[in-house]
């Protein structure tokens, strides 16, 4: 990290801290006016009646809480360290029944520490990561930068969810002053406030560096001109990436730890509840397992493609035509492919079963039988990928110097030995690349499942993407779908990181 980066990081962290503290001050001020006590809120989330009661800090006497609930008014208690806490009862959304209590820190300082400190810590980590990525000190700046972006999103989400918890928990209980009402925004806008904060933080960091840079480059107009032009060229794509790729990562994590009911006006923080829900859902595990089994078509197809490439690796006339033909499945509309294969695999009138019948084999209900449905989809995918893999292998084979093979031949190596000792080691990088990109790609598959089986029969072909689609757009559980997406995202990120580790010499210069 250069000195400039360190300064930018510090400045942004300070800005962030000021913004966070100002925000929490406004919340506190609202609470103060309403409850006539100078308290901050301690993790008072999930108290809106339809969520489980909050877990109180163990340091607070249960009896004290009980009496708060009984007395229906704020009481002052002390935790074992002697820190003053104010507990307040929480009523349900109709302001009718008391459903819990919140414990508030008695002093403003402690509140600020608890609300702002974790977010600031995460932000500093984010900035350090981004800084070291930009200084290219780490060998993989992309991964580091991504970590930074994710951490920045997490910082924004963390700050906002805590502030929201503070506002939401007290809103039903207390007479809400206008300031607090404005802060206790309905959640959609809060989510977008998170997005706005990420963008704001990015803009702030940019502004700080711009000022710094301007002072440095003041005497060099050509450099100023070039920088402005370059940023102009980059601005459109950067804006799009920020809104549709970078911000959604943080937003995704945010949704996954909140309740997101399309109809409800509030979206309380629920921690890992959605992850627990999908963890307890056998169909999620089924989908994950199906995805892993489905991915096995990749190595299987690679073997076939390698065999084909070995046979075809010789001067043949018309091979160029083949090289075009094999890409048809990739280019063609996937729905069309799904349809024709469904027709080919038809139980009664499909061509495949007709062929089986012709050689006196029993007919198979390919897509109707849970045991064969997933293998059938794997077959279609293998057909789609075979040609591409073959072409890649062919290129790999032709890159092997003939002199190497000749030398092995002169040393008396037979065909198998030549393959094992010369060809295969040379093809290893290509194979790893094909394997990892193929597996990553296999987890993107949706169309075949959607058209051919709809995840059935009996969840036999349910895969994660299809689960996410159904959960969000058929069952309208966006929060649970987000939790699944986080799992999928983590899985694919891990695979991609592995791929980038293995494939050296990717565009990691700059």
């Amino acid at each position, binding site marked *: 990290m250069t000195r400039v980066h360190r300064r930018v990081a510090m400045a942004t962290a300070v800005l962030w801290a000021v913004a966070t503290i100002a925000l929490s001050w406004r919340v506190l001020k609202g609470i103060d006016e309403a409850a006539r006590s100078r308290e901050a809120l301690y993790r008072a989330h999930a108290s809106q009646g339809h969520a489980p009661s909050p877990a109180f800090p163990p340091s607070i006497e249960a009896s004290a809480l009980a009496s708060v609930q009984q007395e229906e008014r704020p009481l002052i208690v002390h935790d074992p360290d002697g820190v003053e806490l104010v507990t307040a009862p929480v009523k349900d959304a109709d302001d009718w029944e008391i459903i819990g209590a919140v414990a508030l820190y008695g002093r403003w300082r402690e509140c600020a520490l608890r609300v702002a400190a974790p977010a600031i810590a995460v932000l500093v980590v984010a900035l350090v990561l981004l800084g070291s990525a930009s200084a290219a000190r780490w060998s993989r700046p992309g991964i580091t930068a991504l970590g930074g972006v994710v951490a920045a999103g997490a910082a924004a989400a963390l700050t906002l969810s805590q502030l929201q918890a503070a506002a939401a928990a007290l809103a039903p209980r207390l007479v809400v002053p206008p300031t607090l009402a404005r802060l206790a925004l309905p959640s959609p806008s809060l989510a977008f406030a998170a997005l706005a904060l990420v963008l704001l933080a990015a803009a702030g960091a940019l502004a700080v560096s711009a000022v710094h840079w301007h002072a440095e480059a003041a005497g060099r107009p050509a450099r100023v001109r070039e920088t402005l032009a370059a940023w102009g060229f980059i601005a459109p794509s950067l804006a799009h990436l920020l809104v549709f790729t970078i911000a959604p990562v943080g937003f995704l994590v945010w949704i996954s730890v909140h309740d997101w009911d399309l109809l409800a006006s509030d979206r309380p923080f629920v921690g890992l509840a959605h992850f627990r829900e999908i963890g307890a859902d056998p169909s999620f595990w089924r989908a994950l397992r199906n995805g892993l089994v489905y991915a096995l078509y990749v190595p299987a197809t690679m073997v076939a493609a390698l065999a084909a490439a070995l046979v075809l690796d010789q001067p*043949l006339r018309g091979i160029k035509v083949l090289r075009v033909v094999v890409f048809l499945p990739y280019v063609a509309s996937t729905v069309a492919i799904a349809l024709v294969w469904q027709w080919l695999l038809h139980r009664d009138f499909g061509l495949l079963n007709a062929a089986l019948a012709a050689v006196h084999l029993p007919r198979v209900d390919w897509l109707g039988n849970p045991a064969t449905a997933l293998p059938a989809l794997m077959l279609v995918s293998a057909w789609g990928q075979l040609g591409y893999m073959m072409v890649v292998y062919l290129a790999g084979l032709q890159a092997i110097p003939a002199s190497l093979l000749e030398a092995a031949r002169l040393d008396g190596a037979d065909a198998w030995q030549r393959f094992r000792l010369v060809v295969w080691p040379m093809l290893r990088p290509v194979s790893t690349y094909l394997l990892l990109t193929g597996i990553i790609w296999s987890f993107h598959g949706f169309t075949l499942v959607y058209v051919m089986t709809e995840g059935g029969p009996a969840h036999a072909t349910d895969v994660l993407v299809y689960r996410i689609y159904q959960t969000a757009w058929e069952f309208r559980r966006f929060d649970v779908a987000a939790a699944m997406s986080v799992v999928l995202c983590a899985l694919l990120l891990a695979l*991609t990181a592995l791929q980038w580790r293995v494939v050296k010499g990717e565009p990691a210069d700059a």
Partner: protein
Amino acid sequence: MPKARGRRVAGYGAALLLALVMVAPFLWMLSTALMDEFEVYQAPPPLLPASPRFANFTEALTALPFAVYFRNSLILAAATVVGQVATAAMAGYAFARHRFAGRTPLFAVYLGTLMIPGIALLVPRFLIVDAMGLVDTIAGLVSVELVAAWGIFLVRQYFLSLPRDMEDAARLDGASEWQVFWRVALPLARPALATVALFAFIDAWKALLWPLIIARSPDLRVVEAGVASFHGMYYANWPWQMAAAVAALVPVLLVFFVAQKAFLRGLAFGGFK
């Protein structure tokens, strides 16, 4: 040398077999599309229609408003191509040619986005587009794929392989940065841009999941979604389904055959994202 000859025969045999395996489903699609509705229900099935029935195409394509679907798919594909080519050209050029403040961290951010799997971002992207009020609009349909980080890297790589003399000469002649880009650099990058355009077109044409969730009303459906729902409505009429499938294939195959060179260049760059 009989051994080499045997190998050659095996090679031609394998090539023929592979080509057949690859093409057969497409031929079967076409053949079924020309059969009579009940002709297909025979065991063993006829390989060719007794008499080709071209009316299947007109009937299938008017059973649902496919003209609208094709229009929507073309709009989606055109917007995707224009968006991805324009942004890839501009950003790729800037990253390759300009030395500017903030380049290194910015480049790291772009590399980072290359890692993020878009498929996992469906939910937040949808909710963001929803908050913008763009669900069930053309703008929402085209919004998310307007930029491809992949294309930016391809164009950048391409520019790095070109000499920059002409651009410098233009600058000395007093051309502005935009003129240098538009008049000098862009024409040179045509092959790379063709590759970006081709892959953008193919991806947009094949997209199903995003159009499915973002376009609720039937008159915003794209061809892929249209054929999929056609499949559900005329489940038993295989010739009609195959006719619709063939129609969905035609535009993208045409583009592919015209632009094979660009396709292979993209492949060499790791085009399968």
